[in-house]
């Protein structure tokens, strides 16, 4: 397998560009470049209101899930770690359900979901601070508790939901989709996601120190507790901004980092970026399939899971268990 970093980066960028181009032009209403350039009204409207925002979210959101998945696996020294390990996804789901039930408009649901994700992580990290030793295992246990709490809230909200409309909306949100996203609703996310990814890339040397034993990291000058808190919050901001728009997307944050590591056999910043590019490819590709294969639009997670589940099994049985 070629391991030349430049070649890998170029290949991943090309794949992402091809998928993004396909995502812009393929769909129920096929677009053509000449149609858009000639200013054909319907084509231009579909391009800007539906396709462009959707493709942008696939690329940027997938990149973010790839980068943050890599960071979570490194910080928790666990090849199966994902943002949900500290309650991000369950908090976002509970927040979205609250938004669907009590607020009006897609923007309000996005905001409620973002708040739910962030709230769950802040609660998890605050609970973990009760243990002065500040171990990774304490954060994981707090994450399990917060996840259970958020699931209970979600269940209670579902019980009070109108089964015809609200319950279906909640379920559809949980299944994940890039459908119905507009550029205006993406505004804050387009600021938060690049900021989160840039911060994580700049701090990557510090993230690698967190993969050592705590005592070893400390003797290498890392203020372990504060550093871990900062990096996890930065990663959470990116994930929360992404999934508040997309709903839950399975496996991208797990698949992309492992695929990147398998290609480069290291964990340096280049591999982190490659993980982001692969995340973008997976999410954009899955969205393309979700809206092209069936008579109606299918959930994105159906395709990411179809790819992710066998990969996970292969990872468990074949190897590659190191982070």
């Amino acid at each position, binding site marked *: 397998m070629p391991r030349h970093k430049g070649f890998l980066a170029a290949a991943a960028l090309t794949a992402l560009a091809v998928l993004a181009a396909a995502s812009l032009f393929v769909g129920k209403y096929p677009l053509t470049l000449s149609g858009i350039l000639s200013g054909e009204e319907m084509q231009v409207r579909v391009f800007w209101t539906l396709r462009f925002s959707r493709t942008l979210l696939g690329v940027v959101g997938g990149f973010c899930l790839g980068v943050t998945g890599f960071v979570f696996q490194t910080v928790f020294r666990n090849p199966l770690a994902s943002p949900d390990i500290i309650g991000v996804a369950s908090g976002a789901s509970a927040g979205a359900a609250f938004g669907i039930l009590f607020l009006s408009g897609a923007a309000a649901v996005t905001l409620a979901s973002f708040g739910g994700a962030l709230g769950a992580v802040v609660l998890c990290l605050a609970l973990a601070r009760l243990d002065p030793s500040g171990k990774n295992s304490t954060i994981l246990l707090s994450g399990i508790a917060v996840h259970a709490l958020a699931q209970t809230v979600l269940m209670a909200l579902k019980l009070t939901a109108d089964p015809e409309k609200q319950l279906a909306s909640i379920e559809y949100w949980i299944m994940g989709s890039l459908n119905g996203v507009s550029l205006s609703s993406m505004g804050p996310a387009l600021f938060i996601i690049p900021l989160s990814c840039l911060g994580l890339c700049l701090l990557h040397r510090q993230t*690698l*120190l967190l993969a050592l*034993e705590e005592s*070893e990291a400390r003797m290498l*000058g890392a*203020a372990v507790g504060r550093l871990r808190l900062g990096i996890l919050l930065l990663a959470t901001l990116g994930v929360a901004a992404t999934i508040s728009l997309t709903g839950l997307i399975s496996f991208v944050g797990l698949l992309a980092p492992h695929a990147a590591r398998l290609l480069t056999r290291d964990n340096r910043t280049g591999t982190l970026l490659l993980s982001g590019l692969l995340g973008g490819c997976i999410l954009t590709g899955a969205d393309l399939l979700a809206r092209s294969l069936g008579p109606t639009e299918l959930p994105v997670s159906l395709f990411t899971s179809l790819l992710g589940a066998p990969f996970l099994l292969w990872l468990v049985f074949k190897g590659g268990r*190191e982070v």
Partner: protein
Amino acid sequence: MSFFTVENLSAGYGSRKIIEGVSFSLEGGTLTGVLGANGSGKTTLLKALCGILPHQGHCTLEGQQLEGLSPRQLGTLCGYIPQRSGLSLHLPVEEVVLMGFNPRLGLLQRPGAREKALARKALAQVGLEGLEGESYLTLSEGQKQLCILARALAASPRLFLLDEPESALDPARRWQVLELLTGVLNRTGAAGLVVLHDPALALNFCHQLLLMGEGKLLGSLDPRRDSPQKMEEALSRIYGPVTLTRSRDKTGREHLVLLNEWRETP
């Protein structure tokens, strides 16, 4: 005033005290060995000295008290080498050595050409030249230990704290590593405190030996000045009856040889 002074050090895990009332001092440019049976508190002593374990008492390095220093300040002054590194990432060997410069770099700063040159020099010193680009995880246990030693050497701390840095090395490499270490300390004026399981290594390379037993400092020895009888008596308190003799190898170099007197368990 001594280079490094430890006064009345006590530490443990939770409410359980492992070491108590330990006091000693080290001179710059010297290597001091810590000897003791399993569970005597050797590793706890090192962890307390470098602030990993909360402790009572004071440690002063070149007039600066170590308690209360930030991890960055502490990491600049002290180089700690654990028995095994917890690193389980695929990272190039050179990158692992460059981690040693972290206390001297800004939060977002990356190691530059100077640091990379020092890392390569340290890798060559421990005999890992040519392996800079190899993944750390593909190294043998002994090579991993040498890589972690190179990480500490490259960063040039003022105090080396080494926890059995030779445990995974073959006999020849053990001698080379301790020779390298004493040479570095002699050149830089830094001090080293090394926990060793092999008393023969300690007797032949260390300028001072600290003998630990049941969490207390039982005494100290100067292998270059103390008589074999005095050392035999002190070492017998740790290892049971021993005989110490001086012997020369084929090059004429004198070695202290420790023989355990085997006795049937009653």
